[in-house]
């Protein structure tokens, strides 16, 4: 694959992963309403939440994997786990590493949640609220596309939907429940 293609697919898969994580976060929050969402029955909301998360991990594997081969990105396998040590834009890149580590923790604990028990699983799952902003910040900070209109529009939609869902989640009524 040409370095141009690596760069494109590498970034592209990152954008797809961001969208999937956003979908997952929004549906995960809205599960709390105990109501069907946009025509999806309740059990489907949870299934889509789950599948979007798993799919996002697949795209993140592609995202990090492809960029390892890209000369611009200067990524080593080490950088996928340890943040802020990369060659290209280390701070913004590091945020992505942290987000990746968090999502792996979230997905693994969720797959094992029946064994871990409600309390442990739930405590770790709260980290989703840290994961998503880190992913967005990483996307905007490292992204070469950050200045392009389509990306900004996409990022705005992501932020607005999560802000809306989180806004509902953190109302006094919901916090008191």
């Amino acid at each position, binding site marked *: 694959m040409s370095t141009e293609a690596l760069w494109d697919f590498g970034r592209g898969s990152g954008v797809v992963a961001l969208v999937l994580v956003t979908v997952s976060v929004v549906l995960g929050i809205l*599960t*709390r309403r*105990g*109501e069907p969402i946009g025509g999806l*029955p*309740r*059990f489907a909301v*949870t*299934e889509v939440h*789950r599948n979007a998360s798993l799919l996002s991990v697949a795209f993140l594997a592609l995202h990090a994997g492809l960029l390892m081969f890209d000369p611009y990105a200067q990524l080593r396998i080490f950088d996928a786990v340890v943040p802020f040590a990369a060659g290209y834009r280390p701070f913004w890149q590091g945020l992505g590493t942290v987000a990746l580590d968090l999502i792996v923790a979230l997905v693994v604990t969720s797959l094992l*949640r*029946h064994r871990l*028990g*409600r309390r442990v*699983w739930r405590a770790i799952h709260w980290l989703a609220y840290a994961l998503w902003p880190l992913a967005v910040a990483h996307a905007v900070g490292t992204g070469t596309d950050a200045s392009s209109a389509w990306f900004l529009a996409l990022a705005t939609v992501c932020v607005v939907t999560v802000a809306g869902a989180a806004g509902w989640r953190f109302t006094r009524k919901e916090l008191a*429940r």
Partner: protein
Amino acid sequence: MSVRLHIDWTACDGRGLCTELLPELLGRDPWGYPIPRQRDPELPPALVPHAERAARLCPTLALRLVKR
């Protein structure tokens, strides 16, 4: 030996997934919580896979299948 559906009411948050996956067994009250016909209702063999799915998906891990 029967398989029963046990609801941990202290964990149940009325998310309602189980009421969709087991409509033959569970009604839904005005606040979204499941209404079984009796405590720990027995699961007919045909419903066991659906109950397993409900237990796996329940967002608050409030469902358990108990073999007795």
